[in-house]
């Protein structure tokens, strides 16, 4: 007996390690994956699904895929043919933009990228000036860089634009235009002046009541018939205006939700301090209201970003459009799936980035109202 047990005075026994079935990998597995018979079943089902779905997908996308080469003959067709995406990459990004002018597109987006980075990364100084630069001079610079026609730059008409570039241009113009217009519309809808309120309500309900595809179709097909002969608005411009108006109507309702969530006391307190209406809104109400609806705003932005693909029906080629277009080339028929994967990854990167940044903004602006 003496060699199997040891006598300790009460309270002096050293702590024993937990049983091996409760810690480490095995413990984690027992607690998380195999705790009950239902867990057993679900785990086995999940592993089976991974085996059936993910393994072949990875095999297709990576292990059996063809990466090197220049023509379709370099693809064995056992897995994905990324040669297709590589050969067409320039078209996917720039559309039919002239090759010797591509630096202009690159420069435009580099300026924007640097500006946005400076704006978003905390600790970089001169945020105010960067913001003003991005909002006012930058769109003008971008217009002349992309479209040309001044400062010795060759004009590049918008029918040559395409791919990711068009997606970004439409999404950014839509995003930048829709927020201020939406705020004005939301304020107008809550205004006590009946005519302004009626106009805003009519505008919002009209644009919200029709599908975007109808707006684009009207802009592209019916609008030219009402114009005098020879008057042709640029197709891209028509789409831009349509998209901006459409998303502004949605934005207005999102902002209105935020305005309604601000307690009446905030308005009254601000007025009691003698602030004028613009000051009440700019300094007291809107900062709180907009902060509250960041998820809704970003939701609208992401929706807008993805809706840009609808411009395909009016003959503009966004990222998805050029992918489909490339898949109709006789030398590259049958690689549509690879193209769709590329487009999906491209859209996912931008939408995911927007979503992460909005979560960061929410945390940064957190003032303890979270429930």
């Amino acid at each position, binding site marked *: 007996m003496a060699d199997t047990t040891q006598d300790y005075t009460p309270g002096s026994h050293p702590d024993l390690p937990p049983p091996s079935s409760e810690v480490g990998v095995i413990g984690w597995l027992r607690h998380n994956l195999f705790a009950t018979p239902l867990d057993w079943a679900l785990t086995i089902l999940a592993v089976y699904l991974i085996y059936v779905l993910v393994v072949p997908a990875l095999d297709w996308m990576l292990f059996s895929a063809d990466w090197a080469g220049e023509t379709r003959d370099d693809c064995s*067709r056992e897995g994905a043919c990324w040669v297709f995406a590589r*050969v*067409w990459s*320039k*078209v996917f990004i720039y*559309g*039919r*933009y002239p*090759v010797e002018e591509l630096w202009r597109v690159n420069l435009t987006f580099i300026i924007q990228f640097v500006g946005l980075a400076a704006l978003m990364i905390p600790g970089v100084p001169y945020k105010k000036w960067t913001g003003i630069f991005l909002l006012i001079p930058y769109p003008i610079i971008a217009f002349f860089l992309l479209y040309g026609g001044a400062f010795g730059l060759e004009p590049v*008409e918008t*029918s*040559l634009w*395409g791919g990711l570039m068009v997606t970004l241009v439409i999404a950014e113009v839509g995003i930048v235009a829709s927020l201020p217009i939406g705020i004005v519309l939301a304020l107008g809808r809550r205004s006590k002046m009946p005519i302004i309120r009626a106009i805003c309500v009519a505008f919002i309900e009209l644009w919200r009541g029709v599908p975007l595809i109808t707006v684009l*179709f009207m802009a*592209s*097909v*019916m609008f*030219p*018939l009402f*114009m005098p*002969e*020879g008057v*042709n608005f640029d*197709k891209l411009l028509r789409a831009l205006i349509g998209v901006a108006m459409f998303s502004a109507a949605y934005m207005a309702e999102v902002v209105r939700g935020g305005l309604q969530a601000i307690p009446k006391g905030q308005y009254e307190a601000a007025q009691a301090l003698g602030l004028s209406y613009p000051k009440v809104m700019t300094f007291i109400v809107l900062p709180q209201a907009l902060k509250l609806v960041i998820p809704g705003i970003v939701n609208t932005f992401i929706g807008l970003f993805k809706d840009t693909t609808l411009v*395909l*029906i*009016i*003959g503009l*080629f966004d990222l998805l*459009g050029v992918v*489909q*277009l*490339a*898949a*109709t*080339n*006789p*030398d590259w*028929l*049958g690689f*549509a799936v690879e193209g769709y994967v590329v487009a999906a990854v491209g859209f996912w990167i931008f939408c995911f980035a927007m979503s992460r940044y909005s979560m960061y903004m929410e945390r940064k602006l957190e003032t303890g109202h979270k429930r």
Partner: protein
Amino acid sequence: MKLAKALFAAAAAVGLSTAASAGTLDDVRGKGFVQCGVSQGLPGFSNPDTAGNWTGLDVDVCRGVAAALFGDASKVKYTPLSAKERFTALQSGEVDVLSRNTTWTLVRDTSLGLDFVGVNYYDGQGFMVRSDLGVKSAKELGGATVCVNIGTTTELNMADYFRANGMDYKPVVFEKADEVVAAYDAGRCDVYTTDASGLAAQRIKLKDPNAHVILPEIISKEPLGPVVRHGDNKWGDVVRWTLYAMVEAEELGVNSGNVDDMKSSANPNVKRLLGIEGEMGKNLDLPNEWAYNVIKQVGNYGESFDRNVGPNTALKLERGLNALWKDGGLQYSMPVR
């Protein structure tokens, strides 16, 4: 549907009224380029290459017109159009010529304020089956399941054909061409039917293209050609005769390679075509070497066909109905004299 028709009629009426005042030939000459309406990507007919340049049989019509007019086939700007907006785009003057695999029908020719000027590709609906079925003729397809696009003339033509031949069939319908092909490839149906040129293009997408055959029967007429606005006759003449010049050149054996040598040909037809004799260009209000420029820069019809859809391309289409009339086809140029 009624509303759509009414809108369309209104659109056509507006198109008519604008067309009447237009002199597209002068407009085009003034702005210095041809605005050409093309498809949003149809293999071999109009699609961009990796450098972003538009190529194809339909594109060559526009390039030919630019060559005839300006002596420079590159003076074309392209507007990709969906099937729905193509006619409005032409009516509203957004494009000067619509060269977008458009079937010439009576209704379109008469009610839309448009004029078809010719046929640059005679298409027709065909059938594709797996070769291991051993089917040699569409007449043997009784009881087959057929994959087809929903709501197209293709579906109606097929119904007519099977009824006329007293055969029954099971249609499997899909919204998009890609879905139809995928279903056929997966074996959900025995037969796949669409326009013959489309069959050739879709066949490339199949897992094993060589395990499928296209049956010889063509069950419908689909003459595809360029379209201009109604009442715009001078401009219509230019497009029509550009098309004819390409066919005539093939008939006379003139191609982009030998056109300079052919200038000294003794054949009076060649001389007239190339502008050495006569004043063909003047009658069209074009430079006298209009056809020379077309042939030199775009090639004759046969060259254009071979380059874009012919046996050496991925599409591997035979000339068939599109052979010259001398070779048993339908391509026939009115005499250039």
